């Protein structure tokens, strides 16, 4: 006897529908877990960054008040389960090391002391940079075309009775030199790699090998006859993007001393590491004493009144 054959698809359809609903529900649940995880990390990161800034503020205030923070400064808990640790590096650049300025934009001036900034002015022979030349490195190796930088270099010297300025202009783009009359900077295909005072990591014992697009060639003579060098003020031209810049001492046997030439100590880098939960954020501040305001380069000095 043949039994009747049952047929139908309702159960299968119901099962498939249930599977789809389950998949959608699981996806939404997984998305919510991810969002919560991200927002938690963002919250911790924000607290850590604020703590890092707080550490910098406190360190700068103590330094300004004449209470150096020494090797390390701990802020303690700020009241929201975050804290910061600040480590300074004083007296940069190290002997024989290049001093790197933080990246600067167009028309911004970077200042490099060639005499001890803490010493009295006008400069004296014992406090000035002892070498006869410096190398100036500038430019982001990735800059091309209209963003290729040019450099205005203003050397300020003391001739015994008054301050003198000497301006020179260098361009990394050979195509512009015919029109602007600048000198050509040495910009090889392989960027320059030099060790500078920059220390972008939280590990303040390491200094960076940094890449630069160009070097000024010939090197700038910082000691014109009968004059003492005071400072170099350099300004980026043409490029709309931030450009790095460094000044390196030149000479392995400086003034017959047997030691390499060194720039005067003139900068401090404060590195603050803020911690909140599992997040850490680092804030770094470059501080240089006695920086002349940017309008200094454009000021007109006169012994008497100036009538227009």
């Amino acid at each position, binding site marked *: 006897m043949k039994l009747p054959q049952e047929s139908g698809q309702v159960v299968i359809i119901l099962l498939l529908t249930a599977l789809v609903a389950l998949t959608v529900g699981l996806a939404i649940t997984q998305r919510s*877990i991810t969002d919560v995880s991200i*927002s938690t990390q963002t919250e911790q990161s*924000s607290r850590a960054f604020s703590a890092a*800034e707080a550490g*910098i503020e*406190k360190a700068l205030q103590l330094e300004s008040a004449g209470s150096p923070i020494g090797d390390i400064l701990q802020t303690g808990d700020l009241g929201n389960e975050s804290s910061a640790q600040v480590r300074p590096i004083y007296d940069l650049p190290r002997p024989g090391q290049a001093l790197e300025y933080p990246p600067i934009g167009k028309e911004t001036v970077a200042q490099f002391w060639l005499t001890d900034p803490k010493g009295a002015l006008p400069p004296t022979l014992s406090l000035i940079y002892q070498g006869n030349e410096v190398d100036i490195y500038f430019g982001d190796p990735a800059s091309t075309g209209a963003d290729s930088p040019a450099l205005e270099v203003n050397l300020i010297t003391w001739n015994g009775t008054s301050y003198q300025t000497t301006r020179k202009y260098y361009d990394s783009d050979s195509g512009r030199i015919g029109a602007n009359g600048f000198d050509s900077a040495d910009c090889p295909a392989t960027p320059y790699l030099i060790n500078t005072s920059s220390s972008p990591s939280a590990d303040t014992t390491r200094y960076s090998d940094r890449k630069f697009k160009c070097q000024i060639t010939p090197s700038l003579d910082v000691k014109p006859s009968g004059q003492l060098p005071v400072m170099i003020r350099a300004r980026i031209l043409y490029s709309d993007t931030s450009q790095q810049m460094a000044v390196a001492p030149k000479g392995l046997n400086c003034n017959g001393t047997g030691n390499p030439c060194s720039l005067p100590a003139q900068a401090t880098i404060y590195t603050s590491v803020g911690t909140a939960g599992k997040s850490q954020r680092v804030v770094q501040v470059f501080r240089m004493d006695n920086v002349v305001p940017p309008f200094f380069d454009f000021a007109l000095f006169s012994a008497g009144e100036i009538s227009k």
Partner: protein
Amino acid sequence: MKDKGVSLIEVVLVVVLIGLMILVLTNLPQALGLIGGSKHEVLARDIASKKIEDIRSQGFDSLGSGSSLIIDNRLDQLAGSSAQSLIEDCPVTACSNNEQVKKVTATVSWLEQGKLRSATVVTFVAKGGLQ
């Protein structure tokens, strides 16, 4: 004669499937709420962080102690929101040398599914500091 019926493994699989569905569907509203809540958390923290930077840009000498309301158009996106900043002298536990430092706290509060939530950002602003 062939026996008809449902095997044990089929029953177990269906029970597991239905159980998972119930679990997921009952938690679905909560999951959707968490997604919205995390967005609001990020927004609130951003509002507080912006206020902190605005205060820092004023400079230490311009800061007076006390609390004030935070005004930000984005607060409209948070239900039942209120925001205020508090400037006070740095506590002795953090500033033991009478440093000229102010402690700045920015707090944004809002209602999330009927519950009060808040985001707080704390930092220092010092004389001779970042500004």
